[in-house]
């Protein structure tokens, strides 16, 4: 059977493999790009492939993973479902490096839920600071949810801001109640 290989005779195996890799790279979608374009209800197998890398990569490889997740998150065509997925992944492997881009999303009511989902479990004072800073940017239910995350993290440095919210008659009852409970939660940790 005649070979369909049009490459010149005499090329080495290494050369052929490199050419194959380059060729295939152009025809196979990159799951890291595709997962950012995820739509609710659509095929999510690309996201699944990314998730498997996230959960299976050993600790020494997680910084590289985080970079790739943040790169996907920064794509201008990142969808709502894609953002939610990427933030779920960052909730597992994110570090202080993720805080600046997530903090920007946290302050926007359209993206705050996904960002908070990622930030709440990430350890470190950078996250606490980002959550506190967002208190002035959010209102209503989103602010109540934010206060809940601050409480879960037992951020004692937020006590002053929470007292001010609790005592502010201009805040809606939902937000003031969230601040009251957060103070109970943070206070009980110190006792």
């Amino acid at each position, binding site marked *: 059977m005649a070979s369909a290989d049009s490459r010149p005779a005499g090329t080495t195996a290494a050369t052929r493999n490199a050419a194959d890799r380059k060729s295939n790279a152009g025809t196979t979608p990159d799951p890291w790009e595709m997962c950012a374009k995820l739509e*609710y*209800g*659509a*095929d*999510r*197998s690309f996201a*699944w*492939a990314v998730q498997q890398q996230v*959960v*299976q990569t050993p*600790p020494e490889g997680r910084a590289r993973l985080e970079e790739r997740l943040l790169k996907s998150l920064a794509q201008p065509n990142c969808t709502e*479902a894609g953002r*939610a997925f990427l933030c779920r992944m960052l*909730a*597992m*492997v994110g570090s202080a490096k993720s805080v600046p881009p997530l903090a920007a999303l946290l302050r926007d009511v359209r993206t*705050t*839920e*996904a960002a*908070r*989902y990622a*930030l*709440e*479990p*990430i*350890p470190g004072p950078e996250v606490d600071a980002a959550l506190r800073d967002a208190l002035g940017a959010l209102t*209503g*239910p*989103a*602010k*109540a*949810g*934010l*206060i*809940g*995350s601050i*409480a*879960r993290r037992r951020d004692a440095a937020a006590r002053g801001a929470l007292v001010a919210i609790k005592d502010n008659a201009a805040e809606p009852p*939902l937000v003031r109640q*969230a601040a009251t*409970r*957060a103070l*109970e*939660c943070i206070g009980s940790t110190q006792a």
Partner: protein
Amino acid sequence: MKTLSALTRREFIQRSSVATAAVAAPLILPSGLRGAGAPSKKIAVGVVGCGNISDSHFPALLGYPESVRILGVCDVDRERREASAARVNREYGTSDCKAYADFRELHARPDIDAIFVCTPDHWHALVAIDAMRNGKDVYVEKPLTLTIAEGRALVAAARKYNRVAQHGTQHRSMKRFHDVAEFVRNNGLGKLERIECFIPPNNRHVGATWKPEPVPAGFDWDMWLGPAPWRPFTAQGYHYNFRFISDCAYGQVTNWGAHYLDIGQWALDMDNSGPVAVEGHGEFPSTGLFTNATKVDFTVWYPNGIPMHCRTRYEGGGTSRFVGERGWLDIARDKMSASDPNLLREMQAAGKKIQLPLSNNHHENFFECVRTRKHPIADVELGHRTTTVCNLGQISMVLGRKLKWDPAREEFVGDDVANRLRGRAMRSPWSLT
């Protein structure tokens, strides 16, 4: 019977299957039943969640008309809550039972004593904690909570507000399961070697993709999602099927695992502790609406080295098998068998050194404790511990690796990713605090 229920004498005698025990016990009222919570005061009940789980509670709750009264039902589905209220009122011949769309309004009623939490799993913790904060006792359907963090918060709330809190693992009130746990605890099988739990398969069949649909009239989708991440509505993903979506539940791992793993915990005297390691290798769908494992396979190991396996069985219902040096025992809701019939006979023998508390009816046990303020047979601490075992299996299967668990600190040892999966941020405005 060892315990006296909260029923009136007449109800008690009518319901008892052992007449001699029935006439012997209820003639003596414990001191707790003669005080403020005397039987003359009916226990007023609210039911949150009017789906298939509450359907299994209503016949029992309606069966005590002289001592228990359902005064409110709540569901985000108007059709369901109105149908449930109508059912209760029809049974009582009154119009006293009100329908609520928001559980907080029901909890605010000072005349309600106890709340039955029958919602989808992702709501269990928030509804139960809010009820207890408002002074209600709670009966929380299984699994106790969705996550480990929620479970610990729920137990803390029960203690903080001094509430009676029963986990809806009714196997704890079925004599067959009691007898097996007690037999194993007394080394009836000799040295125990392992426990094998089988649970039914996960996930109904849906396609690789799904389409968002308009929310049905009279249905509050935003409230139904509550603390779960937002997603568009699809009819394939709410009533009953929610359990196959990991934002809301962990499928049969928690649905049936909460029952069968629970008996293992009981038999191993682990009600206040748990395993020290877990390894899981489940199979998950790579696309489609449902995200929970289609094949469950995990093992937990206890401090004494005994493993408890949990696996999917594609034919047949759930069972637990206890294997020891003298043979094995199989236990399910409807049957029990053993490698040697003598084991079953020995199990019924009196005079065992270790005797486990006995309850013959999960509802009655709860109502008794509402009146006496004692811990119920399936107190939420042990419910939390069993739900934790389910979570350990789920997390290990998701990560695909063996994990070490510290049951005292309730944290994984040396695995930061696993520890982050013990809880999750809640969608606004909801919070565990």
